[in-house]
């Protein structure tokens, strides 16, 4: 929902939302954009690329793909401008991350965030994406093709970047996806494929021409190469770029952009807000950042909702958010927490650093620290909860720990 709020800020006008049926019912947003919902049933387990294939008839031009668990306030025009200016095949968004500092409830021990690192190589200007590899795919060494280094002698490799899953793709990439049924996920397969293709030449086409025996087979192979999907109408602008005196690199004799047809660009955000809430830790982190950033986002709702009945305002910390219709009893202290709507919190409860979802009942005398309590849970009197995950509709006994 954050995302659909963000989009009007950058004035995107037509959105196709792919989601499950139940969620569609919950969304009844009143926005100026044209929202087009496409439902996929629950049984099909679709990857991101499959979803794109599902709606490819609706896509007639270059497309911007976003994942719904992205919360960000980036200026979309920056990503799209990269796409437009350099006539790129792909343009994406990344953000510098920092290590999460707080302990994530429900997980025993600290997991070292080493296994899921991504190695991203960018060129000197910081805009062109040269290299992308996930640590899980590599054995022991990082292999970089020589052709990359020949064309871009200076490459900066970074590991602290988080991919925001915001991609701007050209139409022929979608066509390529449709033809090539083996790619299931955008992020882990298509994007690295495109990044690698920047520096490889369309050799399969040439081989197909020479060898007449294997003509059929080669033709099939060639048709799966993305180069064959790139339409040649860009040749109109060739005389313009011949006469123009711009070059993206210097020091060698090659033409601008090395005459590469597939080009991938990335916009790296340095500041601003960008979270992908696809893991629990990130979700909690994002929730905790929300009070600080509500002002930043320009939403002017008061932190404590108008219809909440709080008997003792002094005990509610200034960076807590309390939803609508929540009842909070006396002598309850709430610090750094987010409490959803329709909750009932009785007296003498201490809540610190928690995320409490909607319709939760917390009886007297409880002490909650660093926990996540999901919908409709009931926590009986005197419970003492620390760093726990409490699922929906759970009932905790009195004096539990």
């Amino acid at each position: 929902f954050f995302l659909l709020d963000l989009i009007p800020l950058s004035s995107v006008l037509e959105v196709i939302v792919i989601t499950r049926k139940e969620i569609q019912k919950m969304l009844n947003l009143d926005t100026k954009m044209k929202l087009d919902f496409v439902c996929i049933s629950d049984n099909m387990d679709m990857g991101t690329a499959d979803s794109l294939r599902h709606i490819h008839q609706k896509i007639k031009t270059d497309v911007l793909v976003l994942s719904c668990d992205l919360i960000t306030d980036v200026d979309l025009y920056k990503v799209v401008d990269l796409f437009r200016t350099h006539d790129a095949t792909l343009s994406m968004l990344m953000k510098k991350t920092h290590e999460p500092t707080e302990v994530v409830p429900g997980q025993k021990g600290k997991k070292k965030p080493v296994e899921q690192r991504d190695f991203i190589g960018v060129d000197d200007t910081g805009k062109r994406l040269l290299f992308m590899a996930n640590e899980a795919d590599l054995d022991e060494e990082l292999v970089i093709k020589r052709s990359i280094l020949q064309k871009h002698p200076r490459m900066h490799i970074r590991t602290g970047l988080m991919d925001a899953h915001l991609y701007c793709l050209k139409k022929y990439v979608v066509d390529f996806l449709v033809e090539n049924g083996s790619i299931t996920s955008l992020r882990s397969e298509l994007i690295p494929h495109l990044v690698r293709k920047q520096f490889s030449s369309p050799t399969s086409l040439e081989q197909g021409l020479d060898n007449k025996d294997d003509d059929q087979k080669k033709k099939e192979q060639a048709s799966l190469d993305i180069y064959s999907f790139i339409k040649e109408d860009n040749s109109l602008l060739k005389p313009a770029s011949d006469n123009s005196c711009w070059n993206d690199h210097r020091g060698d004799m090659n033409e601008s952009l090395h005459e590469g047809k597939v080009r991938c660009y990335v916009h790296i955000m340095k500041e601003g807000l960008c979270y992908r809430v696809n893991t629990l830790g990130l979700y909690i982190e994002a929730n905790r950042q929300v009070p600080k950033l509500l002002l930043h986002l320009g939403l002017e709702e008061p932190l404590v909702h108008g219809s909440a009945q709080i008997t003792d305002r002094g005990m509610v910390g200034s960076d807590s958010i309390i939803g609508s219709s929540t009842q909070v009893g006396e002598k309850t202290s709430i610090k750094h927490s987010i409490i959803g709507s329709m909750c009932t919190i009785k007296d003498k409860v201490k809540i610190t650093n928690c995320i409490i979802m909607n319709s939760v009942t917390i009886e007297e005398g409880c002490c909650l620290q660093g926990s996540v309590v999901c919908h409709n849970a009931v926590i009986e009197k005197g419970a003492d909860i620390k760093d726990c995950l409490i699922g929906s509709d759970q009932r905790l006994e009195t004096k539990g720990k």
Partner: protein
Amino acid sequence: MAERAAPGGAGPETAVPVPAGPQEPELSREEKLQLRKEKKQQKKKKRSEKGPAAEPPEPGTPSDPGQPRAAHPTSLPALADGPSDGEKPAGGKSKAELRAERRAKQEAERAQKQAKKAELSQAATAAKPRLTPTESQSVVKRLPEHVQVDDPAAQRKLAKKLERQQVPLRQDYGTKVNLFSHLHQYSRKKPLTQQMSIPSTVIHPAVVRLGLQYSQGIINGSNARCIALLEVFKQLIRDYSTPPNEELSRDLVAKLKPHISFLNQCRPLSASMGNAIKFLKKEISCLPDTLREEEAKEKLQDTIDKYLREKILLAAEAISRSAFEKINDNDVILVYGCSSLVNRTLCDAHVKKGRAFRVIVVDSRPRLEGRETLRRLVRKGIHCTYVMINAISYVLPEVSKVLLGAHALLANGSVMSRVGTSQIALVSKAYNVPVLVCCETYKFCERVQTDSFVSNELDDPDDLIVLRKGQAQLGGWAENKSLRLLNLVYDVTPPDLVDLVITDLGMIPCTSVPVVLRVKSVDQ
């Protein structure tokens, strides 16, 4: 349509109503006669009654032949019934006379309003200032709006016009040097697309892309910009469909205007682009009405192709051939910056004709375009030397001729080109080295300029900041109130410093440029 009246009226025409050229759709003679009759009637009434006849018809008449096109004959009776001046002349007139009188007054009022609007829209069209207007109009020469940035009234007018066309207004950046405060200064880091929706609905996406490429400097050089512009216009025409009840010839011109304003906001239009746009608008408005939409679009695309081929590509070929005669064996040629024409000439001379010569490439900050020239020439195997502009007096003793490219050639023979060209011409004159300028005729422009201040372009001042060992000395220039950075793009070389201009019409001296212009305008 008002712009068509301008070149017709810009010559030494008097107040006699002249037909506005052969391109008028058969505007009824009866209409004109009727109007003249009505005016005569009105004059008679004025003299007889000494009533406050609202508008003197004289200034109305020269613009009048331009106006009746706009006056649809069907709307006349409707207006006659509409609210009129409110004056009722003394009784004793028949109804028909009254009506005729009212109609005449309406016509005259409308004519004056059209004249005012025509002046406004002429001032607001992209890029080109006109020649001095006719004697019947005011004596003050009107400045084009792009050199009136320090005049708040002109800026307000511009803002209103852009709002009407739904094109965002680009904000100026940084304090400007006082002498150039009448020009725009934009920052490359704040592109125009910041204020536009994704995807943009008002401006065609190809035009948005072109505008971005202009403002980021990806398409540079007047030939490249013009070629890209024409290609994008071809695409616009392809994607255009006439709405019902509109004529293609009028509607398409109106549709092109916001796009042209947008491109102007991204980067001020060059002289070559301005001429191309004028040509295109003329072509569109003189399309015969009998053509179907498909045929009309085909025809337009063909004319654009023809213009591109003849005026740009073939002209380059012709210039390359004529310039080749001037290149002798064992010549040392000095070139400056990156001009597509000069590069082509030199490459052709070396590769196709096999002349042996050396080239000295002179370069200057902050654009450092000479590096691109160097790369292209060395790639073809030409022996090159590379110096910065502060070294020209060191290399000039061994130079046999100087070959320069031009952005535009002005009507008094001055050459408008990249900043630094006039320096090179000046020093070459001091060393008695001949200076040759290569320029196609489509870049000839009717403006007259004797200095580089009046009409120029200010580039992003942050380009002047240089990082040395991680430190940028000028980095905090904005905070220092007495420090201004100036990044000029063009300068004007006076005609006595240029020895020869090589065009596709042949080799002409600088002073013959007005002749070429006159010949061109007669042709059209």
